[in-house]
Each structure stands twice: as structure tokens, then as C-alpha cells.
């Protein structure tokens, strides 16, 4: 099977400091890849590079479009790239205030992408928004509340609904569960796992939490100081880590 996303030799320097050094991997449709590593290891930079928010110094990102043709994202025009980002891709941010319009109601947040692709029927937009709020377990009577009145967990769930409403095939998630308390985290992870399986989403999830990687991902990429140290199936890497740093990472997890 041809991969959905191919990343090759992705490199980014901030001045003399290497944030990402020649990173390459492929992602199949429906596959969940976790990128783990400590703070400052280049995980978030990698995600920004893939999303095209930060320009790479070297390397390429190729994506198989809906028409089956694989295109290098650098060759896309700005219009095509933005269209891709708001239809076929999603980006769930660590900080929900960056991923949501805080002054706009929940329904408007979910409906924005639909209106962005040209839906001009209020009733239909609202019905879709209600459907998605239900799927992320937000009560229907909160549809007209702005996210400022939502709890942290609800904001993340709203962000997920906002991203998934156009049925994307690839979702990038940057630490979606950090900053939430443990029980809320568990529910959110459960929900993400359900949606990913149901919709057949390909996901790249950046996390420093190995439990999140264990629960959600098929494969793991371990990063340190901008390099990929180890990669493999999740169970294999977490149960039988080969690199010294991965062994340290796995053994640092506190058992409850």
C-alpha cells in the first residue's frame, strides 16, 4: 500500500541549534504514530514542519491527495495548501485557545470549516455541529456557549469536533491531553481512540506521556535532541527498548 504521508530528511535549525535533524518516516492511512521524547527534543517543531507552519531548512513532506496523486507539499500553491489544511487535515493544539475561536460559540467553531468550504445552509451547518458535539460528548444545550465558558477537557473535545467535521484523513495532535487531570485525560483518550478507529484516521500524536502512546498508537518514534533514536511498533519499543535513552525514558515512568 502506498503511504499517506512520507517525510524525508526534515531538518530545521534555530540559529546554530538543531531542532530537527534529518527526520524521515512514512505513515499509512489509518495509522497512528506517536512521537515521544522529553521537552525540547524537537517533537513540536516536527509537527509544525509537517503542517507547513514553519519552513524547513531541508527535507520534504509528500502527501497522497484524495485524487490518489502524491504531491510534495512544497509544490502546492498557498491556496491548495490552505484548502488541504482545512479539509483533509486537522491540527489539535496543546493550548485550546490557539485552536479555537474563543469569542465564537461552540456551534460556530464547529461550523467554521463547513462555511470555509462553501456550505451556506444554516440549518444544515447547525445540524452537523449538533451531531459532532454529541460525538465528542458535549451537551446540545451548550451549542451557543463560547468556549471561554468551557472546562479544559471540553475545550479539547470541542477542538477535536471542529477539526473532524470535514472528515479529514490526517490529524496532527500536539499534546492534546496535557494539562488535564487524570480522569479527564482518560475519557478524552478513550474518545480519541474510538473516533480514530471509527473514522479510520491517520494520526501523528506528539506526547511526552508514554501511557498516551501505549494507549493510542500503533507505532512510536522516539526523539532526542532533534534526532530519531528509535522507532518501531509501540509494544515492541515500550516493552523492549533498545536505545539507552529509550530505556531511561521507559524506566522513568512512575507506576501508580
Amino acid at each position, binding site marked *: 500500500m502506498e503511504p499517506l504521508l512520507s517525510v524525508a530528511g526534515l531538518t530545521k535549525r534555530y540559529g546554530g541549534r538543531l531542532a530537527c535533524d534529518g527526520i524521515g518516516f512514512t505513515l499509512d492511512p489509518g495509522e497512528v504514530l506517536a512521537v515521544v521524547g522529553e521537552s525540547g527534543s524537537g517533537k513540536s517543531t516536527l509537527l509544525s514542519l509537517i503542517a507547513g507552519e514553519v519552513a524547513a531548512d531541508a527535507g520534504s513532506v509528500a502527501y497522497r491527495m484524495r485524487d490518489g496523486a502524491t504531491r510534495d507539499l512544497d509544490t502546492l500553491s498557498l*491556496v491548495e495548501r490552505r484548502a488541504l489544511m482545512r479539509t483533509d487535515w486537522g491540527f489539535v493544539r496543546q493550548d485550546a485557545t490557539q485552536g479555537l475561536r474563543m469569542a465564537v460559540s461552540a*456551534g460556530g467553531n464547529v461550523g*467554521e470549516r463547513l462555511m470555509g468550504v462553501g456550505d451556506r445552509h444554516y440549518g444544515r451547518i447547525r445540524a452537523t455541529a449538533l451531531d459532532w458535539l454529541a460525538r465528542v460528548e458535549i451537551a446540545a444545550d451548550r451549542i451557543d456557549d463560547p468556549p471561554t465558558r468551557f472546562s479544559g477537557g471540553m475545550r479539547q473535545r470541542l477542538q477535536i469536533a471542529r477539526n473532524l467535521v470535514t472528515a479529514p484523513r490526517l490529524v496532527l495532535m500536539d499534546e492534546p491531553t496535557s494539562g488535564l487531570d487524570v480522569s479527564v485525560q482518560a475519557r478524552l483518550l478513550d474518545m480519541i481512540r474510538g473516533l480514530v478507529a471509527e473514522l479510520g484516521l491517520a494520526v501523528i500524536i506528539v506526547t511526552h506521556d508514554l501511557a498516551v502512546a501505549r494507549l493510542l498508537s500503533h507505532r512510536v518514534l522516539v526523539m532526542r535532541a532533534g534526532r530519531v533514536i528509535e522507532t518501531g511498533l509501540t509494544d515492541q519499543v515500550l516493552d523492549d527498548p533498545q536505545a539507552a535513552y529509550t530505556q531511561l525514558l521507559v524506566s522513568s515512568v512512575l507506576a501508580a
Partner: protein
Amino acid sequence: MNPPNPAVARATVTVSAGAGYNFAYLDEGTKRMIRRAILKAIAIPGYQVPFAAREMPMPYGWGTGGVQVTAAILGAADVLKVIDQGADDTTNAVSIRRFFTATAGIATTTRTAEATVIQTRHRIPEAPLAEGQVLVYQVPIPEPLRFLEPRETETRQLHALAEYGLMHVKLYEDIARHGHIATTYAYPVEVAGRYVMDPSPTPKFDNPKMDDCPALQLFGAGREKRIYAIPPYTRVRSLDFEDHPFRVQRFDRPCALCGAEDVYLDEVVLDDAGGRMFVCSDTDHCETRLAEPRLAETRLGETRLADGHTGEAA
């Protein structure tokens, strides 16, 4: 006085009013710069063209943008009309008219049909505009996406890529909150199928008048330093949803003075006991109708008819 700069003197219009002002206050270099911006704006309908707005002898918010556009397009033979909220006799309208009388020595009028240039704040005249007329709007905030997307770099990109989903988010919020599109003024329009534009704070009642209008419409924002335009006979469409189509507000009564229906009415408070009347906001339209002999006759006829049926009516 210093001898005039020869380059400027060459371009100077021979007519100059008293008090040592250049014709229509602005120097010729500035007028040329503004005219260039206007030409570009006409070439790209609805696109906001930046221009180097000058300090004007009036505060921002009083129509400095409109005044600069008017000054740049005025010729000695032009007849100027200035309206403020539909009225020719409010402070803003009177001062701007007087300003151009003093600095350009041109003729002014309150009659819409007689004017060649009409500077307006918050209204479009009720009387249909004709070819050859220019309507100049005073614009406080030219960016329709301003309160949705605070970054000017981003709004420019949204315009460039014609990504106007965000504008509909605002309308969505209106319906979600009020059950209908509650935006009643500065109602966003799409010009010539391309740029979304803020029509300045005119009531949405006036939006249909912008569509396919024979007159040239120019918009000047002095503080924000932007000029935009709608060329004559251009398609101007108010944004809406399929199931919540654009509608203008309707009044349940005619003008109390001239009896006009289908016009925009102002509420006038008469006393402190709740007395009020609704009259044409366009004062010239109202006065013209009152002076028309035909209308006077009709009203006379109606009165007679009413007299003839007094018994039934009472």
C-alpha cells in the same frame, strides 16, 4: 509668500477660491496620489487600496476619508451635496459643505438629482442615482473581518485568497443568538463576485441600492488610510444563508410628513410624554415629495374622498 513650486503650479487648477487655499484644500501632489489610489480601487472593485491619508482640519470620525476623496475628484464645475444620516442640515453635512465652498468655491445643493458629487455618511439617497454622479462614503472601519480576525496580515491573506468562511461565522453567530441575521448596518457585501467589502455603517436597507448602480461609488477611510470603490453597474450581493436569505428592514407605517412608503424612516421624539413620529431619514427626498404638485393633488384627492365617506369612516 514663497513662489509656488513650478511642478505643482503646472498642475494647479486655475480656479482657486479665496483665503489662500489651493483648490479644494489639498495640494495637487496629494490629490494626484489620491486619484491614483481611486483609479486602482475602481480597477479592482471592493479591494482596499492603501493611501497616504493626510491630516485634515477636522477630527477623525468626522469624515476625513470622504473629504479627501471628494477633494481629489472635485472640479470647478461640480455641484456638491453632503448628507449626514440622510439629512442635509446636520452639523457634519453643513460644515463639510461650507469647507468646500470656502476652499473650492464650488456650487452646493441639497437636491440629489442636481448634485454631481454626493458625500455621504450612513445613508444612500432614496432618489435613484444617475450615470455621471459620484457617491463618496465616509468609512470608519474599512475591514469587514476586523472584529473576527484581529491580525491585519491574516485578514489581507483571507482577502487575497477569497477565504470568506469567517464572514459567515459572524452571520451564523447572529442567527444562533437572535434567530435571524441581526446585523442591521455595515452589512457585508460581495462585490463583483470577488471581494467582500464593508459598505460603511449604512443601514442594510440601503444595500440593494448599491447593486448595479449607475453612479460611481467611492469609499474613503481617513484614519485607516484605505480607499475602495464600486464602479458603475457592478454586481453587489449581500451575504446570507440559503435558509436565512438577506432581507431589508420594513417599516409598518409611511413617512408622517410626505407619506412615502418603502423608505428608511427616522424616529423623532416630539415631547417627554412618549410622543414620536417617523419621518423620512432622507430630508431631500421628503421635501421634494412635499413640493411635488402631483403628490399635493393626490393628497387633496384622498382628503376629498375621505370627506365624502365621513360617515362610514367615523
